[in-house]
């Protein structure tokens, strides 16, 4: 039985986030920050924005737990998406086209969906009056798709990051074509090689 996805607030939230063109290269994150501040205001959560590198903001929403001295849980997602070859798309990649229960858009899998799922899960828990023991920090970081150099790699070295007192973190996985869910506890080391061909 098809649901009315057009009017579902969580689906609308995802589609609005997908419509923000946070596409590499040289992303301007202002629109993401405005959008995320609006989400935090709806949730009633305080926001901090850190900028270890100029114009590379990291936004953190915090839901304090009942025992805030305990190490916290980090829910991380990146705001940027990889570029598109628009001509190869059936629907415009930043329109968040919804058809037959399917949402098309750059970032639908990687990973704006996960960012909104964190937000919606917190919204539901709060609406039910539930309080959690540990503090949850929802971080939204820039430039993962170009290696995280100006983003997370800088942030983890800062005092601001240490102050979050994180004990455990979740971040993106990947889609699975079967009924199984994939989970990753490590990843490959990436070695970029430069091949120089001087010619004759």
């Amino acid at each position: 039985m098809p649901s009315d996805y057009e009017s579902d607030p969580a689906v609308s939230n995802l589609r609005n986030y997908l419509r923000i063109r946070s596409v590499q290269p040289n992303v301007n994150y202002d629109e993401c920050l405005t959008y995320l501040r609006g989400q935090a205001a709806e949730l009633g959560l305080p926001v901090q924005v850190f900028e270890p590198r100029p114009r590379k903001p990291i936004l953190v929403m915090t839901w304090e737990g009942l025992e805030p001295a305990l190490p916290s849980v980090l829910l991380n997602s990146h705001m940027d998406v990889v570029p598109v070859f628009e001509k190869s798309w059936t629907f415009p990649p930043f329109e968040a086209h919804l058809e037959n229960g399917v949402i098309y858009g750059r970032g639908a899998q990687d990973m704006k969906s996960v960012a909104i799922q964190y937000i919606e899960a917190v919204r539901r828990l709060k609406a039910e009056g539930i309080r959690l023991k540990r503090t949850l920090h929802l971080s939204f970081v820039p430039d993962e798709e170009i290696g995280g150099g100006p983003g997370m790699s800088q942030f983890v070295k800062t005092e601001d990051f240490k102050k979050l007192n994180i004990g455990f973190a979740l971040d993106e996985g990947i889609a699975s074509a079967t009924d199984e869910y994939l989970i990753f506890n490590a990843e490959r080391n990436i070695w970029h090689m430069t091949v120089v061909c001087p010619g004759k």
Partner: protein
Amino acid sequence: KLDSTNPFWEAFKAAADELKLKLDCRIFPGGTDSRYVRQVGIPALGFSPMNDTPVLLHDHDEFLSADIFLKGIDIYVKLLTAVANV
């Protein structure tokens, strides 16, 4: 590590079992921000609740079904409750 030395993993796994999620644990084929978090000694898991979905990250016509998306919210409600109450 995905064993009893990590109480967050145990809570995550228990919640996933309760939801009857079939988990397949692997090494990530690419690079994510998790590596920086792990480098400073924080255990991190990569997980996006998208099964029955073709792998289209970075591809044309990237999509996600609204059903899978909404089910993912239910999954996080349980998982976040579990790991934040360790």
